[in-house]
């Protein structure tokens, strides 16, 4: 049995208080094992985004338990949550969220900057990563000089730079044309093949159908979960390949 990266236990999220209180998540139980590639689908208002915020440690659940990579993160203070985001989570957003004033390399370096990695080591690691996503010739460019597909690849490099336990992505292909979207998706599949644990929110049924495991949400609850089973063979393949 593989290690659990994500353990959500009866997660409830309520916004506001009293009569105007709005409960968005009604006791979610989700577990994700190391090496899984999980798609989260659901209509608008189903609680996907709230779930992503909680999983991404940007927000705290009103009640329930959340263990990330074996660490209880449901009750951490703001500083600790920042640390967890920095060390254990890699975000890839729909709108890339690169800082326009920083170069490609500087953008990729940001997480390492906040994890207090010395400058020289930062450069080296980031150069390698930017190279790996095929943008070695663009390190000193600014995001505005790049195409959407390139931006998203920079964002992926940035998400990977701290070797996070969980890669969290929200409609990574939403702002891209079909060709670039497919390329980016291909990168995620490659990463999955290398053993990364990935959680991807998507509207796109086609993309979702290509994922080993899909969780469908509705009204703040899990409607359908294709379960661990689908991912097992892939993990097995990776385990075999890495040994």
């Amino acid at each position, binding site marked *: 049995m593989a290690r659990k990266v994500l353990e959500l236990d009866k997660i409830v999220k309520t916004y506001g208080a009293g009569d105007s209180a709005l409960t968005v998540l009604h006791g979610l139980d989700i577990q994700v094992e190391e090496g899984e590639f999980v798609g989260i689908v659901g209509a608008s208002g189903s609680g996907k985004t709230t779930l992503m*915020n909680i999983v*991404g440690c*940007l*927000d705290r659940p009103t009640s329930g338990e959340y263990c990330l990579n074996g660490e209880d993160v449901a009750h951490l203070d*703001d*500083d600790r949550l*920042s*640390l967890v*985001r*920095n*060390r254990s989570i890699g*975000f890839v*957003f729909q709108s890339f*969220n*690169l*800082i326009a*004033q920083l170069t490609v390399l500087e953008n990729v370096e*940001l*997480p390492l*900057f*906040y*994890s*207090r990695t*010395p*400058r020289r080591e930062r450069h080296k690691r980031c150069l390698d990563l930017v190279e790996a996503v095929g943008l070695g010739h663009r390190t000193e460019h600014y995001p505005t000089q790049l195409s959407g597909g390139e931006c998203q690849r920079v964002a992926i490099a*940035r998400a990977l730079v*701290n070797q996070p336990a969980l890669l969290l992505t929200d409609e990574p292909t939403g702002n891209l044309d079909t060709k670039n979207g497919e390329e980016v998706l291909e990168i995620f599949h490659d990463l999955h093949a290398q053993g990364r644990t990935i959680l991807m929110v998507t509207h796109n049924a086609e993309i979702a159908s290509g994922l080993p495991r899909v969780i469908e949400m509705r009204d703040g609850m899990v409607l359908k979960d294709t379960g661990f089973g689908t991912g097992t063979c892939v993990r097995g393949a990776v385990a075999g390949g890495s040994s």
Partner: protein
Amino acid sequence: MGLGRFFEVVALGVKNLLRNKLRSFLTMLGIIFGVASVIAMLSVGAGARHEILSRIQELGVRNVIINSVKPPEEIKPDTTDTQYKDRYGLTFADADYIAEVIPTVENMLRVNRITQRLWYGSKRLEASVLGVEPEYLRMFGLESGRGRVFTEVDANNYAKVCLVRRGLVAQLETVEDPIGMWLQIGGFPFQVIGILDDAAFRSHTRKALNIDSTTQEVYIPYETSMRTLGTVTLIERAGSQEFTQVDLDQIVVTTKHEDEVLRTSQMLGAALGKLHDRVDYEIVVPLELLKQSEETQRVFNLVMILIASISLLVGGIGIANIMLATITERTKEIGIRRALGARRRDIVLQFLAETTAIAAIGGLLGCFVGIVGILGIVELTNWKAVIAPSYVMLSLVISCTVGVVFGIFPARRAAQMDPITALRFE
């Protein structure tokens, strides 16, 4: 936080400022003017203090100077007499009394002065003839630019020698070498032995030395003056003669110690008050000049501090204002940084670095403006200024403080943003 990291944060701040050069510069203006006025205030203040100190050194810190003063014109005796005799000022009795009674007196210099006609060939001038002791010349730095000054030997021999100002020589329109030439003063022949430097006759010294004319002083030994010219000045006006008798024009009292100056001047005031029935003398205490000017200085400083504080306050508010706008503009960036693991204090530091950098650069520019301004003022006026490196340091410390103080609020505000909301901000 490591030094390297500190520089990185600062460099990031500067980089962000450079992205908006005009805005950053406008934001700095308040600080620039504030710091410039701080620099100006400090250097002008120091210049004034320096000048006063040197003035006092010239007049002697341990000295009390008593001058004879012509009392306000009283109604002249209603006579048809064409002769009028006035007598006022310090007397020999005063001098003896002071020497005898006041214990803190270490040394006392007497000065006699009469106005006399001075003849050179057929040229005539009205001259102020001052009889002074050689020590007096030394004390007040009356040095001869050419020739020599008179000494105790001259004094003891009642030598008829004199020192004149350069201007007086010019008035005589002579082609002769002034050193060694003979002048007739009050009917006696005096030989010029030296020309006095003008440097010793700056306005403040002149005032304290009770000299009103700018060029026509003639200095002769005190003893000679007593023996030959006496103490009576004769002024002839159309048809009337006016005799004025002043025994001593000035007494310079030197105390044993600086601390005794004020006490001595009080005792002198009391003694003279008893000896004179009208106030025909003034007591000048160089130390008190210092106090007076320090008082003026204090008012000046207060005004400048006020101006500087207001400029710095306005500058600081300007910085805070611009930073608040910047933070709204950069909400998204803040959200991204927070998502990638920046703690609140990282965000605070980032924006503090920016405000501090802007204030520090403003401070540097302000120092520059201030120093250039001061040099200009010194050039155009007769003000004195002293610019010390410590003022630059102080100004930089002040401006950095302003940057931190007025940066705290915007920076904290940036840090308190909810990362989710910030990320979604467009």
